[in-house]
């Protein structure tokens, strides 16, 4: 499977999001760069609203992610509960 990734700005807002992503995608690899954190995963990466909400202790709309998003790779599917990046091949 090919690598999908998402890159976020490094800041207070994204720390719990990165933590949530790692929780939900245990095989994902986190790469820190200046001011940027890039998370790679094999074939598929899922970002779950509930996991983020548990970590930040408030309700969260996945569209808020866009404020701190830098780039990503893969096909995207977004619902109220999950944002998924994936390759079909």
């Amino acid at each position, binding site marked *: 499977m*090919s*690598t*999908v*990734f998402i*890159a976020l*700005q490094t800041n207070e807002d994204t720390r719990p999001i990165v933590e949530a992503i790692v929780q939900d995608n245990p095989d994902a690899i986190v790469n820190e*760069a*200046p*001011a*940027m954190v890039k998370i790679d995963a094999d074939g598929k990466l899922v970002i779950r609203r509930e996991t983020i909400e548990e970590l930040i202790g408030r309700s969260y*709309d996945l*569209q*808020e992610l*866009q*404020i*701190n*998003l*830098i*780039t*990503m*790779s*893969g*096909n*995207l*599917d*977004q*619902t*109220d509960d999950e944002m998924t990046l994936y*390759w*079909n*091949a």
Partner: protein
Amino acid sequence: MDMQVAKKKLGLKERYAVMTRGLDWVPSYQKMEDIYPYMSYEGIKIHDWDKWEDPFRLTMDAYWKYQAEKERKLYAVLDAFNQNNGHLNVTDARYINTVKLFVSGISPLEYVAHRGFAHAGRQFPGAGPRVACLMQSLDEIRHAQTQVHAVANYNKYYNGMHDFHHAHDRVWFLSVPKSFFDDAITAGPFEFMVSIGFSFEYVLTNLLFVPFVSGAAYNGDMGTMTFGFSAQSDEARHMTLGLEVIKFILEQDPDNLPIVQRWIDKWTWRGYRVLTLVAMMMDYMLPKRTMSWKEAWEIYFEENGGALFKDLARYGITMPKCAEQIALEKDHLSHQAWSTFYNYAAAANFHTWVPDEDEMAWLSAKYPDSYDKYYRPRMEYWREQAAKGNRFYNKTLPMLCQTCQIPMVFTEPGDPTKICYREVDYKESKYHFCSDHCKAIFEHEPEKYVQAWLPVHQIYQGNCFPEGTDPTVEGFDPLAAVLDYYHFESGRDNLDFEGSEDQKNFDAWRGMATKNV
């Protein structure tokens, strides 16, 4: 009406559907082909616009909310940067030349993207893609403006940026990025989407922004880093739009495949040629390097683009053929580009220099197969000559490629000692190309590319002197006249970094902060 209508909360997808495509209707007072006149001439066949899948489902209320938050943050950083003389925090004043290159070469393209997406966002008969395109049009004017606002502060203290709009429409090397976007916006709406939405945004934008913005972060430029990352935060939406467009077109009709494949081939190459500027910025212009051009190409194109094309293989799309030649060029591109600008530093709006010893060591390490063998000796020779007072400025105008408009400085694929020339005879004239790919692009649409406004041809035809110039007078200095036409101040905007006003001012201002004078 029943008062007890079950007001169940709609899910994101259903809600978005009533908020966009539910608004649209099939016209009956005017014909579809009159309302959407540009839909058929490119040969793309669309049977059902409703099959369009909206990737990000952002309604205007959420758009305003999130974007305003981004803008508030961004302008707070810019204000602080300006008030605190943030420009003096950068590694050294050479860095600022990347900002000059960016604002004169790239920011004006953000503006064209804004207008191009307004056009595409008006012309597609599907409500989904239309809204996505218009949102992107709105984002792109944001990018153009935030860049101008961020660079405005640099312009107050440093040279080369003071008339960048004027420069963009005229200067020889700026015709490279300008003609690229002119090419895209003058193409049909579908090709525009493949060129900018897909090839540029999805395949190549990471190579433009991630190195540039991380470069700013590495070099202490908080202002640029902030506008860069802030612009990138819109990019995820744009990239997804680009990818959905390709999938949608390909799913609609098998006849679309060869057209789309040709566009992908063309625009990957066109975009790659524009990225030459980024390659040289990464390897030569950032005092503190992030990664080499070659490494960036490997991660963001070979690995990531590879994954993308593997995914698109189910539609019959293949990796663009030019990828093979690009792979051969990756050891050479930035060095050949920097050498060119080093030569033509008298006619550019930014400074060039010979890399110092440490930087040469870095280049040797990153390019073990090419730097020491082909490029280091050349640069050491220039350094020697400059030390003797013979800084070399080339004042002869180069021949340009008719398609990408870059001077013909690139070498044969596989032979870095031989310049690559290609030519085509077309209607009484001979046209010149830097590569087989640029030649093929021309041959497919010669009537388009013969129109190109080639800066060197224009200079020779006398079209690039200030009004009223008489080139026949004794002692006429053509370069000086061209620089006037560009609104470049010779001696301040151009020439070597060593001895420049930028260098002197930066040192003096930094000195004021660290010493008691």
